[in-house]
Every structure is written in C-alpha cells, then in structure tokens.
C-alpha cells in the first residue's frame, strides 16, 4: 500500500509539468477553462506524441508505451490542470484506441493505432452513438447498417456528436440485425466510418453556451466497406459496455472546472477581510473546504480506478461511481463560486468586470451538461446498484 507517488512517478509528473510550463510561457495555449473535446490543435497533439504521451497505455506493438494507467492519470491530471488543448487526439486516445486493441481486426489496429499515436493528420475522431430518440439507451439505436456485398449501407441520424465537423472518422453504432424480434442488446454493431463518405451530412447544434460543440449527423445510403466493422457483428452493445468501464473514470470528469476552483480559492485568499463581513467569509470558507474535500475524494476515486485497471480488473462499478461523484462535484463548484462572487458571476469573458477571467460564467453555462455526458448520473447509479451491489433488476 502506498498513498504517495513513487519517485519515478513524481519525476514523470515533473517532466509533464515542465513541458506545459514552457508551452504556456511560449503562448501556445491559454489556461482558461476550456472544452476538451473541441477540435483542438494537431500541432500540440504532435508535441505530446513525440514524447510518447498518446496511447501511453497501449501495447508497444501498436506504437504504444505499455505504461500503467496510473501514469496516464498523472499525465492527464497535469494536462487538465492547465486545460491543455488536447482535443485533436483526446477521443481517439481515450476511446477509439482501447476499443480497437480489444475488438479491432489486425488491419484496423495497424491502420489506425500508429497514426493516432503519432497524431498524424487525418485521425481526428468523433462518436456516433446517441440518436434523437435514444439518449442513454444505446440498445435502442435505430440507425441501420445493412450488408451489401463487400459494403454496408448506412442510414439514420445521430446527435450530440462532439466535434463532428472537424472529425476525419466517426465511431458508429448502428443496427445490423433488423429482425424486429432480435434481442435489442444483440442487434447493433460498431463501425469506423470515414466522415468524407458520400451520404454523410454534418449539421451543427448550437448549445446553451452559444457554441456549436455538438452536431447532428445524417446518413443517407452512405456506403462503407465491410472492413469498417469493429469486432463482431451484432456485438456492438456489449463491446461498448465492456469498453466504457475503462473510459468513464478519467480525470476530465473531475477537472473540467479545475482552473475555476483554483481561482476561487485564490479569490478568498486575496479578499480583503475588512471588505467582507466576517460571517460571510466564514460561510464561504466552510463551503469551499467542503468542495476541497470532495475534490480530494474525487481524485482518489480516479486514481483508484486507474490502479484497479492496472491490476487487470474490470472497474465497472468503480468507474460508474467515480464519474457520478466527480460530475456532481463539478456542478457544485460553479454554483458555490457564483454564490461567493455574487451578481458579477453572470458576466462573460471580454470585459474587465468578468470575475475569475470569465471562467465562472462559462462554467455556469456548461454546468448542466456535466452530469449528462457519457452516461447520465441515473444510469451510473443503476450500474453501481445492479453490477456493483448485485441488486435484483426485477
């Protein structure tokens, strides 16, 4: 047992931190609260690639480093701490690569993994899971992929697709067994789709923060080669479920607001005691201390999940619990910051009066999405109850 990092781990953290410090000094990126899944910068991703920081946990045979998840967590913690612009490779690194390693064909592995690891041009991914009528219920997808000779013909609509407009490939879940009596958990498959395929249309959705972070993607007789199928036909749902356990507990669930929380603490340190009623100050202190406790615990949950994966165990309930816990903490941060900062919390970036660099207003606009992305809190709770505690389903 050991609740501190090893010397090697500390050295690695220092290396990452030093790299980021020099990038920030060079003005490569701003440390404002950002959006990790936005297109990002391929040049920045390449710098990480050069250091072996993409696909870090993947097997060496596919260009990975075969390093433990705990070390990847250290890397990610440092990246999120300064809100580094990792959008170009983020989804491929977190989701696509591990899924291919588990379920992909040799061709797929060889074709995609080394390019992702190098942050080559043309390997930005988006996820084509959600549909207008199937949000949390992935087994209810209605988009179809019908085998036709050496191809599949794809039809249907996907929504809430992050950064689809900038993506080269989409990771698609579509129904392949159209027999209406088919088991709904055994009738869909996973595909990698070239987003330039004719018949695919991407339309941005403007969100409440006024940004087109999400997209709708329409498929009209889009023809994709059969080798796009990932894993087994009709096993898509099971493959995704198995894979999600490994993606859920990333530190991004805890740290989307990180600079905001740091600034909030600094704000309290900087506040002139004579200008704030002591009772208010006492209250704010108490609330922020509670957030600090929750943050610390969320961090333990993240590292614990990473460590569990390193032990070769599936972290199903753990990862679900971790994400539910962390995202709820994140929503509390901006709420509490607004209660402490007062009316100015509403002022967005761009003027001198926006507090905490305007990060607060952005976070308030984004807040509601934290507990929805990647499995709603309700779904996560069910996973813990059913799979973690073994409660009966009926």
């Amino acid at each position, binding site marked *: 047992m050991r609740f501190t990092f090893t010397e090697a781990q500390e050295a690695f953290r220092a290396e990452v931190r030093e790299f980021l410090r020099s990038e920030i000094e060079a003005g490569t990126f701003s440390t404002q609260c950002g959006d990790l899944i936005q297109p990002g910068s391929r040049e920045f991703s390449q710098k990480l690639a050069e250091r072996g920081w993409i696909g870090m946990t993947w097997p060496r045979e596919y260009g990975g480093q075969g390093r433990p998840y705990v070390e990847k967590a250290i890397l990610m913690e440092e990246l999120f701490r300064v809100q580094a612009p990792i959008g170009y490779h983020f989804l491929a690194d977190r989701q696509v690569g591990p899924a291919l390693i588990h379920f992909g064909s040799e061709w797929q592995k060889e074709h995609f993994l080394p390019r992702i690891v190098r942050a080559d041009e043309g390997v930005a991914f988006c996820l084509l899971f*959600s549909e207008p*009528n*199937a*949000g*949390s*219920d992935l*087994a*209810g997808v209605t988009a179809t992929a019908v085998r036709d000779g050496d191809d599949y013909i794809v039809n249907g609509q996907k*929504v*809430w697709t992050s950064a689809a407009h900038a993506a080269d490939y989409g990771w698609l879940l579509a129904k392949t067994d159209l027999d209406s009596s088919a088991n709904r958990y055994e009738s869909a498959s996973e595909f990698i789709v070239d987003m330039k395929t004719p018949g695919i249309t991407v339309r941005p*959705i*403007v*969100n*409440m923060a*006024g940004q087109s972070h*999400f997209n709708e993607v329409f498929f009209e007789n889009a023809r994709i080669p059969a080798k796009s199928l990932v894993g087994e036909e009709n096993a898509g749902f099971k493959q995704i479920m198995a894979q999600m356990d490994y993606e859920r507990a990333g530190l991004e669930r805890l740290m989307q607001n990180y600079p905001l929380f740091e600034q909030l603490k600094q704000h309290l340190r900087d506040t002139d005691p004579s200008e704030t009623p002591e*009772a*208010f100050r006492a*209250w704010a202190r108490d609330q922020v201390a509670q957030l600090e406790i929750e943050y610390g615990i969320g961090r333990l949950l993240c590292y614990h999940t990473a460590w569990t994966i390193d032990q070769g165990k599936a972290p199903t309930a753990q990862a679900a619990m971790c994400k539910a816990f962390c995202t709820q903490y994140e*929503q509390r941060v901006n*709420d509490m910051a*607004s*209660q402490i*900062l*007062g*009316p*100015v*919390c*509403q*002022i*967005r*970036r*761009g*003027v001198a*009066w926006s*507090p905490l660099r305007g990060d607060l*207003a952005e976070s*308030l*606009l984004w807040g*509601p*999405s934290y*507990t*929805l992305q990647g499995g*709603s*809190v*309700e779904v996560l*709770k069910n996973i813990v109850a059913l799979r973690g505690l073994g409660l009966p389903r009926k």
Partner: protein
Amino acid sequence: MDFGMDEQTAIVRDTARKFFREQCPSSRMREILATEEGYSPEMWRQMAELGWLGLVNDESYGGSGGTLFDLFTLVEEMGRALLPSPFFCSSVLSGPLIEEAGDQDLKKALLPQMIRGEKILTVALLGGEGRPDFDDPTLRAHPVDGGRYELTGTRLLVPFAHVAGGILVCAKIEGAASDGPTLFLVDPNTDGLECVPLDTLTKERTFALRFNRARVDGDRIVGGLGQGGAHMGHIWPKATVLKCAEMLGGMERVVEMTVAHVKERHQFGRPLGALQAVHHACFEMATCLETTRLVTTQAAWLLSQGLPAAKDLAMAKAWCNDAYKKCAAIGHQLHGAIGFTEEHDMHLYSQHAKASEMTFGTSWHHRSRVADELGI
C-alpha cells in the same frame, strides 16, 4: 387564513397569461431577445394600453392604482413567459421610486410618459464589485458651479441603459452636510457617461456604466439631499418580492415542461416518467414549486397589506433562490442532452434561475436576515 386567489387577482393572471401566450410564445421571445433593443416596442405599447406599465402608480399620473399583489401576479406571468423587456427596471423599480421620492413637478413630468410607454427608466443599483451600492455608495458626486454635480464611479449590470430615458442612481455628494446618499436622475446621453454592453448568462440587455465626471443638473436630484438610501430602502423589499414572482413564474414553466417531457419521452421501452427515479425527481420539483408558491405569495400578500414582512420576505427569497435552481437542475437532468441545445427553452430558464438568484440577495444574505429576525 385563506389561500384562495381573489377574483381581481385571477383576472390579472388570466389576462396576462393569455396575452403572453399569444404575444410572447417561446419563438417570439427568442426573436425579441435577438433584436438590438432586446425588447419589443410594439408589445411595450400594448402593455401600456393594458395599464400594466403603471399598474401600481397612482391614477393621478395615469397609473392603474393596482395593488402590489396585482403586480406580483403580472410579474409571475412575465417570468413564466421569460418576457424580454425593461418592465422590471422601469415599472417595478423606477416608477414606484419616483412616485415615492420625486417632487410633484418631476412626477407630473415623468410618470405619465413612463406609464404611457413613451419613456423607459432604469436604476443602477450595483457598484463596481457587483454588490448593491446605495447605502454608502462608491459613486461620488462632486459639486461644481451652477448647482451642478459631476458623478464619478462605476455601476454594473444596469438593465436596458441603451434605451432608457433616465437612469436613477445613488451617489454620495462630497462635502455635503448630510452623510446619506442622494438619488440622481441621470440622462444616459450625458457627457462623461459611458455605457458598455455586457454579455451575460441570460441575454437580457445589460450594461456597465462608467461615470467619469458625468455632469448632472441640481434639479435632477430626486427626493431630498441624503435621502436616496432611505428611498431605495423602501422600494427594495417590494422589488425583492417581485423578483420572487418572476422566479415563481419561471419555475412553473420548468416544472410543466419537464413533467410533459417525461410523460412523452420513451426510453428503454417505456415512458421516462414511469421510472421511479423520475417519479422522485418530479416529486422534488413539485415540492419546490408548491412551497415556493406558498412562501412567496405570503410575503407578497403581507407587503401588499402593509404588514411587517421582513422575515417572511427573507424566507421567500432564500427559498426561491434554492428551489428554482433545484428545479432547473432536475429539469436539465430529466431532459437529457436535448435540454442543453439552443433550440430548447430549458436552458433559458436555468440561466434565468441563476441570474435571479444573484439579484436582490443570494440565499446566504437572506438567511442572515432571518437569523437577525430570530435574534440569534
């Protein structure tokens, strides 16, 4: 004890609900929000004709002589429709403030115009730190020749300053005998006054005002010298409860929308609203709404009757802040990603909840008033 709505109030409510349903459906509200003015001059005229702009002003100025409770009911409907308009700053704050503090000449000159919808007024309440700043204001008035004053300082989050015909603001007169702040009516086009538009959570038009030796005539003082804080203090509780009304209306709509959504939306092969977790979340919303209705109505009724209401008002705003926010959070959770899109109204209400929470006192502030009243 009688929780029943009076007939007169019911008429106000029904008229207003019908009006806003027809004139300000969500699509129209979004159009208005996207205009340069940020309100609909046409609708503003209609509201003037309905007697709403001077609902609680005296009939001698063209007002409707309605009660505070009538106004509560009207504003609740505006909250429900999320009406983009200068109603709050002009008719809720400025009209009553001028009627209370102004001399006869000023009232005769200003109120009929305001009530007929020809002149919009606004109030600049918050200082450069974003806190209410009228007891001992950071805004300074320096007396200069000819009985004039030069104002210097900052005011934040001033609504509709770009279309206002006058801005009410408290300033401290340097070297004055009286210690208290004095209320000025400032012309927005005064030299030395800069209006900086602010981009905020809601898209309501709001501004930062930079006063840099902005010149005001001595006859633009409203009420006595050093009396500004007292006048503001009189208006404040009423404005607070009317903000609660707006929030109550918003909550009503959030609960309606969300309950309708979970009844209709199917997932995992059955209506979302059949899940027990959804039942319980909807219970929370319904409880928030019902309790907010009771506690805010109580405060409004007491104030309307001129009865002591300090504690009840503080209870109302504290509760309202938390309950609206909770409803909005549950509403988002139950709507899923769809509620997070621009086209959906859900997020307009959740941002309204946050913005209103910040206005006229956060929950901590009001709990602190409750504690004062308890003598603890």
